[in-house]
């Protein structure tokens, strides 16, 4: 064997390997096999497929498996359930659509781009009138693209300020801050305790930078979009981001806030080192389970003295893909899901907030949820009804953190520009 042919062989093996790898990661890998997801006949039993995001290891799969059994018993149709982690679901759903093999129902945090691509049923096609009238108006609005509702909310959450009571007492802080000035002073007092205590856990890393920034800018009278126009670089928003940067430069936050993900900030708070963090009900669940931190939940401080605290609300969606012969089965799916004993069971197990009027009534008895429930109907949401937001959100996640070491105005100007150019 000559050296030359060996070299060729090594090169050929390598080429094959890299093509195979590139092919897979390029997203053209085979979709999941074994999906006769739409059996043509509308009258007989139908099989539909649900791809759902994993909110928690313990509850999500358990709920949907049970739901599939109930669904089969009630309608005779079969529901295939596939649970996908949040890390992978964008990739999986994109690959499924790309291979022309979307699920019948997809659970995701965005829907508008899918509606724009004309892939989805609207509520007129698949939602019973009684079900739709029970949904909270704020979520009907956020789920509507060009006047029609495509994004059916599965659950919601609202953010609030979590504070560590032990650290507050140690630092001599009597009550949670009501204004940004008080907030900054309190963060300074906690940081001054020394011993590695952190005033405020600020996560502006790529995981959910848009969420953290949203709640702060809403409490400064800002918004992502105002009257149908993008206002990402509005004076209020620049002021808000500059304020957050000043917290970082004064070292009132954890190390490197522009590169800290939300989960890392939560973990730090759960370790008892952090004075304040913006959290939501699942964080409360985690903290209660661990029982290590004595915490309180308060409304967000506002920029203005005596302002009304604003909440940032988030909802995820269950959207239905138009496929031949699946409409009746999909409608039956929604009818069953929005039964109070289904949707509320799911939301309760996952520790989130309701999306229906009957749900709010059912959850009202829980004193722990009162702070959120009161604010939920008036919560601000991100502009999920605009397909452009789906790209702007990603741009925000990938760029906002750079403002912590760079120029906040320049960062927001660039985001504004990309939003005006359609993302």
């Amino acid at each position, binding site marked *: 064997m000559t050296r030359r042919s060996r070299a060729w062989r*090594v*090169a050929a093996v390598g*080429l094959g390997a890299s093509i195979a790898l590139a092919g897979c990661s*390029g997203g053209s890998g085979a979709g999941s096999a074994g999906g006769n997801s739409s059996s043509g006949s509308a009258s007989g039993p139908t099989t539909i497929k649900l791809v759902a995001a994993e909110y928690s290891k313990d509850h999500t799969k358990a709920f949907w498996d049970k739901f599939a059994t109930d669904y089969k018993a009630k309608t005779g149709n079969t529901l295939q359930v596939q649970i996908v982690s949040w890390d992978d679901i964008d990739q999986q759903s994109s690959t499924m659509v790309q291979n022309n093999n979307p699920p019948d129902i997809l659970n995701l945090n965005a829907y508008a781009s899918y509606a724009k691509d004309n892939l989805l049923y609207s509520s007129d096609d698949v939602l019973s009138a009684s079900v739709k009238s029970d949904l909270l108006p704020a979520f009907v609005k956020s789920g509507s693209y060009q006047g029609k509702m495509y994004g059916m909310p599965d659950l919601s959450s609202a953010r609030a300020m979590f504070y560590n009571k032990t650290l507050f007492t140690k630092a001599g802080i009597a009550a949670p801050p009501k204004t940004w000035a008080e907030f900054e002073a309190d963060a300074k007092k906690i940081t001054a305790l020394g011993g590695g205590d952190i005033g405020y856990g600020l996560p502006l890393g790529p995981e959910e930078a848009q969420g953290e920034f949203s709640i702060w800018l809403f409490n400064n009278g800002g918004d992502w979009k105002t009257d149908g126009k993008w206002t990402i670089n509005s004076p209020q928003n620049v002021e808000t981001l500059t304020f957050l940067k000043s917290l970082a430069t004064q070292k009132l936050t954890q190390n490197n806030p*522009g590169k800290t993900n939300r989960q890392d900030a939560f973990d730090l708070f759960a370790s008892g080192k952090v004075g304040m963090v913006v959290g939501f009900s699942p964080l409360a669940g985690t903290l209660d389970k661990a029982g290590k931190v004595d915490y309180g939940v308060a409304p967000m401080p506002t920029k203005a003295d005596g302002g009304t605290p604003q909440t940032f609300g988030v909802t995820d969606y269950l959207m239905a893909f138009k496929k031949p012969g699946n409409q009746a089965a999909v409608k039956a799916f929604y009818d069953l899901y929005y039964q109070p004993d289904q949707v509320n069971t799911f939301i309760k197990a996952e520790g989130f907030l309701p999306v229906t009027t009957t749900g709010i009534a059912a959850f009202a008895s829980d004193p722990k949820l009162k702070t959120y429930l009161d604010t939920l109907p008036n919560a601000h949401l991100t502009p999920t009804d605009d397909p452009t937001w789906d790209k702007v959100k*990603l*741009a925000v996640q990938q760029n906002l953190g750079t403002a912590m070491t760079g120029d906040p105005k320049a960062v927001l100007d660039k985001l504004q520009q990309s939003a005006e150019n359609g*993302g």
Partner: protein
Amino acid sequence: MTGATGKPAAPVGARPRGRRRATVRGRGAISPLAALVWLAPALLLIVGVVLWPAVELVRASRSRYSITGLRKGPAGWDNFRNVLANDSLGTVLTNTVIWVIAVVALTIAISLGVAQFLTKDFWGRRFVRWAVIVPWAASLVITARLFTLIYSYYYGSINAVLLDLHLITTPIDFLGSDKLIMPSMIAVGVFVSIPFTAYVFVAGLGAIPTEVHEAARIDGGSPWQIWRHITLPLLRPAILVASVMNMIYVFNSFPIVYTLNESNPGFSHDTTITFMYKLAFKSAEKDVGQSAAAGLFNVVIILVAVLVYLRVTRWRDQEEQ
């Protein structure tokens, strides 16, 4: 692209086939159909695992996609142009070059030492040999995740040890500092590449006849001379194979860079592989077409790099002879 992919495969496929046909004719009797039946499983595998994804990749790179993954029509060369026009491309390519060269060079250097050690007779050698395999056997994602904990600013064991020894007063931000993240990733890359490389060298060392070393010792060669002029040249084929495999492997390595770099915004510490993934699913582009185009660039880059490497090493061979 298809021309490039077809070309190197041809000599490998053609030669053995030609040889076999000659012998078959000599004995006189297998119909082409029967031959095809026997070859079918292998052919199917090649078509399914190599050709089909490659064709799909080319098709995707020439298509326009919605953010949802829906194909909207042909895109011509737009995806390729957009990838080349990306502001971060220069940074990503520089990162890739540093990443591949540093990891492969360090891996080869360290593995040479490890292999020498593993071929010596000592008590517990079997145990050490097994232990060396562990980083290789563990899933890369798990290893990378473990290292994010080891490197962590607040909980990391490295920082804890350094603080306890009073070598530093504030923790080191291994994964957040723009200066330190690349060396931190390289260290992990080397850690997981050593086992395979060391074992290739162990095999290579085992293949060197002991007589050669004995003769050199009798002639009065010092250990260094023996290693430099006997062991190293005879190990050359193993080093060649290990370098090429490592180059491809490290170039295509996704989990380490992706996991350790997870909390850093933007593309500033990505290699071409994670760049390609983020283009498709995480960045504001969120464009499968651009990602496919980047994927084809990746294939070309690694192919060219490997061929250049092989040419350079062969040229040195001839010069020495």
